[in-house]
């Protein structure tokens, strides 16, 4: 109990509880995980919001992300500077969106960000190619990749601009019942 007081104030924990899908206990556990990543950098006392950021390389090494082909994109989409440096708040954000409780809408927004490799707010053919290569570990031939990309865009593109906007993406995701359960990382 004494430990709890030193990491976060009650006020902070309440705020976390209201703004994320985690309970107090889980926030404390997340802090533990964050602290574990770089014990000499991350302070135990977070009551005065220290400005600490961990680089992408450290976060990507978590066992939950280590084998994920999209690990870099996940971390980048949640970092404010876009380069993958995560503060504790952004770290919490990341796992909150990836938690079981997050609604489809929220998950879709961040999934869109993750798959939008060149951050131009559209999933274009390039992005699709990259996604496919990561998914299949480049086991498909370039022609096959090309064909899949074309067909996929054709299927999902509603307004006919040959790339997927967020609206297209959301519409497509809404047809996939499994998306909610697969876009989920247990922490």
């Amino acid at each position: 109990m004494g430990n709890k007081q030193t990491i976060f104030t009650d006020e902070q924990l309440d705020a976390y509880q209201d703004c994320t899908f985690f309970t107090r206990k889980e926030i404390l556990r997340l802090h533990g995980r964050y602290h574990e990543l770089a014990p000499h950098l991350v302070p135990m006392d977070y009551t005065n919001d220290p400005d600490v950021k961990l680089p992408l390389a450290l976060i990507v090494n978590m066992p939950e992300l280590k084998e994920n082909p999209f690990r870099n994109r996940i971390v980048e989409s949640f970092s404010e500077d876009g380069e993958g440096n995560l503060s504790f708040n952004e770290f919490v954000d990341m796992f909150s969106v990836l938690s079981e409780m997050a609604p489809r809408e929220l998950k879709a927004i961040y999934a869109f960000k993750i798959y939008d490799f060149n951050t131009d707010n559209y999933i274009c053919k390039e992005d699709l190619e990259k996604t496919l290569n990561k998914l299949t570990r480049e086991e498909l031939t370039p022609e096959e990749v090309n064909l899949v990309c074309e067909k996929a865009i054709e299927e999902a593109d509603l307004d006919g601009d040959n790339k997927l906007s967020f609206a297209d993406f959301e519409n497509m995701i809404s047809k996939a019942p499994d998306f909610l359960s697969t876009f989920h990382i247990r922490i």
Partner: protein
Amino acid sequence: MAHSVSFDILEPTLESPVDEGVVHDSFSRLIEEQSHSLDEDGDCLEMQVLPEEDKSEEDLLEEDRDNVPYLASLTWDQSEQERGLGTENSRQTDPLIGEQWSYATLRVLSSMPSRTIGRSRGAILSQYYNRTLRLRRRRQSRPSLHDCPRSSRPSIRCYGVEMDTTDVGGEEHKKDKLVNNLQNLSISDRVRMLKGMPLSVVEKSELRKLASNYNGGHSLNRGQIPCCSRLKYYIIIALRHMWYSWLSFLHSLQLWQVALKRVSGRFGTGVLSYFVFLRTLLLFNIFLLFITGLFLVIPQAVHPPTHPGPPVAFTGLELLTGGGYFAHSVMYYGYYTNCTLNGSCQPTQNSSMDANRTGSTLVDHDDAKRGSHLSYNMPLAYFFTIGMAFFFTCIILVYSMSKSFRHSFRVDKPQGSLALKVFCSWDFKVIKKSSVKLQSENISTQFKELLSELSGPHEKKTVLQRLARLSVHLLAWVMCAGSTAAILLAVHYFSDYVHKDLQKRVGSATQSPLEKEASLLALPVVVSSINLLLPGFFNAVAWMEEYDSPSVHTYVAIFRNLMLKVSVLAVLCYHWLWRIASHPQELNLECWESFVGQELYRFLLMDFIFTILDTFFGEFLWKLFSQKALKRKRKPVFDIARNVLELIYGQTLAWLGVLFAPLLPVVQVLKLLLLFHMKKTSLMLNCQASRKPWRASQMTTLFISLLCFPSFVGAAVSVTYTMWTIKPSERCGPFQNLTTMFQSGKLWVQELVSNNPNMSWLKWMHTYLVENPLFLFVAAGIFLVVIYFHTQVVDGQRKIINLLQEQIENEGEDKKFLIIKLQAIHEQQRPQSVQRQNLAGSES
């Protein structure tokens, strides 16, 4: 509608645009005018137009930093002229523009609302502002909130104009509005809204702080708030704290969090669904145990009956047969008494009851009333506890089934299978290296299959091939159905034989009771081994059939196994409820309910033992054999469907048995706990992730529905049948002396009415609603009609969705058309500058 209107008037104003700001000013002016003229009725139009308007307005200003990479990528495209962003799209084929986008058009394009959602903070804020507004409007019935949206509306109207002044100020303004709106929501709505916002925690907590602070300030400004409302706030805060601690307590109850994480990390969502299902069953049984324990077992255990059965020594075989030492314990129906518990169950009462025979409970109850105030009518408690347990289980089941249906079956049909595969096939939970590798292999083979389907048309099969196929399927079905029928006959005759054998044994007193007990194990052993072996045979048959799609394969396997299990259970129910229950004297049984309870205990236990054997031989030894002897690298694959069906079978037995053995859920809980750890260990040691794709959410829905439909409904029907029509034992149990168990409720109603004449409506209700089957028929009919209407509604929604999709496509066309027009106007206006810009672009 709104689009076409705005376009018509947009064109003339665009004849002489000096800057983008002018265009947008005219836009907002136009909308202002419209909303003034439409006034009160303009609500919906305003909702449609304004949000988009202020978003684009806002983002146009804000987008300056955002559109730099976008522009860069576009100019790169133009210079490269290869397959890139927009070379192959329809714009190029359009003679009007080609690739020549002016800077201004690009600005308009990049500020479209749809492409800024989830990207810029301002867009999110205004989106949620609209959402909170909508939520508040929905609650306009509340007088205090009624005025707020009205009073805030004029400021939305001039909002677009205000936006033009400053960038930062605009966002602040928007945030204030949002905070203002958030405050007016109830706490739970506010928290839900905050949680769902795609903003960072820092921003959210700032919003939260503002929203709650303002609340405090607000109340301070008003000066004195009445004492009761302050009290209300305190109570709300206290309740909120309690709710949070309750939530975290519930969360800590979530069983096996770590184990489930490990399983899903190695095997993915499919295998996880088995374990989650197991956990669900465990919770069902704990619930059942809680009810029966609280209302039946504990009261009876506190007041043990005065003449328990003959003392029997504990031998150890009881653990297998459930008889002997356990036979006269709180475990079975026969132990429960039919007297009213008060302090102690006096023998005098018992004798008076015996003398009274029918209607004794009435007298007995009066006696009890005189004796003490705390009385507990055991037969009634037994009747209602079982009834309530089934009722609540039914409600929970139907609820979870509907929830699962909502998640897994969308109203519209999935079309874009390829696009869905690209974005939704990766299971983010999987963290083990080899499984990740397997998953990506799996995905690439799926892509290859899909591509081959797309590119090459199906090779036509000849009539002969198709005939051969058909005959193989036919043969397989005949084999499965035939074997099932043969097994059924065998079980039927074997149970008959066991029954006759038992009669003989009862006649001859030479055999030791131990041997007699052991002989009872024959039937459960036979049935369990059938349940174990026949699915293997079905698998072999399915292997012969060579199904093309794995999902059809799974469904067929599930259907065949289900058919087997349901029919075996039906034969067994016939055996128990007709053969044994209607002629208990043939077996010299004092209490046939206890005997049936024991049988169910034996079946449950044998099922468990055979599952252990199956796990050991089927998974562990098979792995050793295939790795050592066959030198293959492959490990066996965890058969989710079969394992889940086994769980469902066990659960059906447990539900059937609750009436006869109230403590049967304990056995089931223990069994499930052991099974979880055993299966997990075996899975980790022996199995590998499956290569087949597994549609987890649809399968989970299927399993829940199977649990509900044949399993629970079957158990409920046979329990109800037992309660309604079969005569309970005359010399034991809570319902002795009654013709049916149901009669205890009837007697209670009569007694209530005779004690209290005001309650005569209860009697009326009972005779007309409960005893009269007509009412049940009418209720069921209404229920069916409601279901029919719902399916009709869903059908209609599907049609509307199709229409809307068409409309979206039209909107897309409209958008393109508008952009082209806009571009044309710019070209006319500043041809020189555009040319120069293009030249500069291509040079860089």
